[in-house]
């Protein structure tokens, strides 16, 4: 990752009403990179997945702190979402499409699949009993487009 141009941190209680707050805040921060509407939508969805996972799996609806860090370089956003909840025992199994431990809550097991598809890179770190950290990266391509347009005009 090239040098960091900007960074922000958010910490909030694991309330489901904060899910929209978190994705809107990250999207607003990301808008500094001049992303397309599609890129913003992808980022919002991926953030919503990770934050919701911390709230419903990590803390199982008890109170805990969800932490979100976002970093911008020239053409990329990196987002870290972490909790100090129950953690994931088997990460590979958890990432498999349609795998869920909460089918009783009408979860579809698509969260990680969506994060993987909507972002360029997904890293899952977790220790059972200690918590989970998700790191996602996405290149903002509109930046390339603007640069090449600029070169053409020159």
């Amino acid at each position: 990752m090239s040098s960091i141009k900007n960074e922000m941190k958010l910490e909030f209680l694991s309330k489901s009403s904060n899910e929209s707050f978190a994705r809107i805040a990250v999207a607003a921060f990301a808008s500094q990179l001049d992303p397309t509407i599609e890129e913003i939508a992808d980022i919002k969805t991926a953030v919503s997945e990770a934050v919701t996972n911390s709230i419903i799996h990590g803390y199982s609806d008890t109170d805990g702190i969800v932490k979100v860090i976002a970093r911008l370089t020239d053409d990329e956003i990196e987002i870290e979402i972490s909790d100090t909840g129950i953690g994931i025992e088997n990460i590979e199994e958890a990432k498999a499409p349609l795998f869920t431990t909460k089918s009783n809550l009408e979860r579809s097991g698509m969260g990680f699949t969506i994060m993987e598809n909507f972002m360029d890179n997904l890293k899952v770190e977790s220790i059972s009993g200690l918590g989970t950290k998700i790191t996602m990266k996405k290149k903002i391509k509109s930046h390339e487009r603007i640069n090449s347009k600029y070169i053409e005009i020159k």
Partner: protein
Amino acid sequence: MNVKHFVEDKLLVIEITEDLDHHATEKIRRRADYEIQRFMPKRVIFDFNRVVFMDSAGVGLIIGRYKTACCYGGTLEMVNVSPKLKRIFEMAGLLKIIPIVDSYKEVV
């Protein structure tokens, strides 16, 4: 969430008007089940025309209502599904069991 009930056609249209995340689906689920079980329509159509945002919670919501309707022999369809939403439904393999229709007015 708005509900339109076409009695003669045994059709119930549920229009979602909010962002479909975990927070919102909790309430929508209860209301949708109430309406479906009350009318027991032959067809339930979810209208996504006004949905700007949806994550995996939307998939869970639709599969859950499919099960509610299946109980008494009702069917589920979806209308006005944007490409963004369609991509998520496709990823989950949902379109194999719950079809997207062009317009519910046409098919009534």
